[in-house]
């Protein structure tokens, strides 16, 4: 068992005898006891005598390290005798270690915390404005053919955002069509108007639901992927490599994704329109015992080109928002693997919030203009 014995040699020297087995896993004397003794009765020298140590491992080194640190703080000289050679070399290594001043931790009051958050928020707004501005300029360069990006990347992005998303978009919208038809028939039957379910499903899907549902699916799929890809590129310094080559990351990474998703969203939404109507038709024709052709005829009579065009226009805006939030979250991520996951999560959350907010704005504007 480890023990420590202290005695005085004159007024100025504290002799510390270390005895027994000093193993990390055992209960060991604390260096703070020695520090307290020095505080009560100051000394100019601490003499360590380890001749009585029978066994030791990192436990003894940790103790000596703490003693050395404490003595250094107090300006007390340390001498030692009887230390094993390897232990002496280890202490020499520790003593050579750089000791940069560490700032004392200061408790922050609530008012200061509020202030700091406000400053961070202001900084975020500023960064968002800069990002949007930079993206607008880069998009301008893309339109006139002066942006730097790889054509094959753009092709792959189109493929990923469009055909790659078709199965999930088809499934989700078909199910939404089914749900709408169920709810519609159940409610309309009370008024004997269940045959209007084709109108309700058709108009709801083409005007709003197909674009909205597709956008939410794409926010979880493409938005999160964009954020994770770009955040990973930041971790591996690929973004820095682009910058130092003189290539704007916004031109190279953001604009192709923005273009791909904005252009592919209307196509996906058109496909989603069809799947939503088919989902409604599957339920409608079955529950009402109506022929499928009759259901589809009713849908085509109620849905106008304006409904479809409005839905497609909204979807393009949603696509733009998903790409912007995804890439922005990726670019603002810090260089750590944890931040990659965080960027993907934030991209989905902000993307979905942006889509729903935009949907609300569209409803209001369309209402104002009587569309």
């Amino acid at each position: 068992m480890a023990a420590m014995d202290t005695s005085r040699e004159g007024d100025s020297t504290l002799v510390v005898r270390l005895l027994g087995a000093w193993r990390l896993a055992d209960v060991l004397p604390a260096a703070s006891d020695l520090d307290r003794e020095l505080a009560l009765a100051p000394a100019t020298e601490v003499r360590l005598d380890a001749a009585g140590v029978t066994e030791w491992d990192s436990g003894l080194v940790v103790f000596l390290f703490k003693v050395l640190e404490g003595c250094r703080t107090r300006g007390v000289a340390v001498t030692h005798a009887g230390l094993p050679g390897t232990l002496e070399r280890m202490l020499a290594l520790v003593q050579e270690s750089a000791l940069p001043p560490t700032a004392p931790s200061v408790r922050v009051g609530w008012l200061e915390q509020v202030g700091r958050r406000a400053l961070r928020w202001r900084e975020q707004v500023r960064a968002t404005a800069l990002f949007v501005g930079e993206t607008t300029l880069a998009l301008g360069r893309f339109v006139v053919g002066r942006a730097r990006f790889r054509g094959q990347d753009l092709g792959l992005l189109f493929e990923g955002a469009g055909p790659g998303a078709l199965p999930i978009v088809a499934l989700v919208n078909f199910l939404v069509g089914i749900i709408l038809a169920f709810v519609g028939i159940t409610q309309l039957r009370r008024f004997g108007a269940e045959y209007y379910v084709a109108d309700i499903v058709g108009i709801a899907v083409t005007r709003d639901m197909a674009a909205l549902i597709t956008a939410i699916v794409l926010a979880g799929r493409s938005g999160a992927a964009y954020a994770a890809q770009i955040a990973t590129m930041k971790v591996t310094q690929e973004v820095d490599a682009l910058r130092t080559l003189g290539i704007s990351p916004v031109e190279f990474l953001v604009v192709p994704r923005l273009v791909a998703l904005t252009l592919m969203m209307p196509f996906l939404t058109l496909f989603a329109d069809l799947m939503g109507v088919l989902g409604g038709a599957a339920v409608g024709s079955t529950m009402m015992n109506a022929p499928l052709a009759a259901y589809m005829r009713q849908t085509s009579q109620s849905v106008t080109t304006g409904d479809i065009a409005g839905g497609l226009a909204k979807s393009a805006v949603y696509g733009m928002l998903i790409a912007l939030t995804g890439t922005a979250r990726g670019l603002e991520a810090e260089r750590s693997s944890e931040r990659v996951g965080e960027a993907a999560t934030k991209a989905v959350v902000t993307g979905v919030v942006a889509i729903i907010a935009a949907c609300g704005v569209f409803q209001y504007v369309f209402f104002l203009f009587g569309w």
Partner: protein
Amino acid sequence: MADPTLRVRDLTMAFGDRVVMEGLDFEIRHGEIYVVMGGSGCGKSTLLRHMLGLQEPASGEVFFGAESFTRAGPADRERMLRRVGVLYQGSALWTSMTLAENVALPLQQFTRLPASRIQEVVELKLALVGLHGFESFHPWELSGGMQKRAALARAIALDPEILFIDEPSASLDPPTGRRLDRLILELRDALGTTVVVVTHDVASILGIATRALFLDGEARRAIAEGPPAELRDHGPEAVRAFFAGGKSL
């Protein structure tokens, strides 16, 4: 006579049907710094992966002391690996953690030490590699050399008997590489750890190795073993050319 710390017996390494290296036979003794050297792509890092159980040999065995690591079951392998520390070529620090958290993780997972004691050990290990005061830094806030030293602190957190180091000077400038070499020597002296280094850096080999093994990628076998200065002056031609830098390996 005591068993060697690590023994590789008649080891053949292969990827599918393609044999990379065969008939490897060597022993590493306690307290040695044993360097596995050779040109790029000769199979040095693959040998390291075999010694750590990250890849299975086509034939042959690796022994830790008297125990066969290759034939051991998962639980025994885990127990044996507890005696080992590894410094990876790219540092492999967990970027979401601070340096203190990186070093503390093995202690938290594999010891029953109280948090206060773990913190003390973490401070000590970081001090040993000259990073005392950097506990709260994240890896990405440090230079490449400091990251390597922090990874070294993590590798020695559990006082390993054997320390494996993959390309210590990779991506470091020569002075920083030499400083890291000195640190490896000092840690070996201070901790008494056996060190296995995989490298093609001639200055590093001559600076730290007790003995070295030369892997010849073309012959697919080890062609020389011994103290590096002896290999440089009296080794086979391919080895002398390697030290002279006259042969592209």
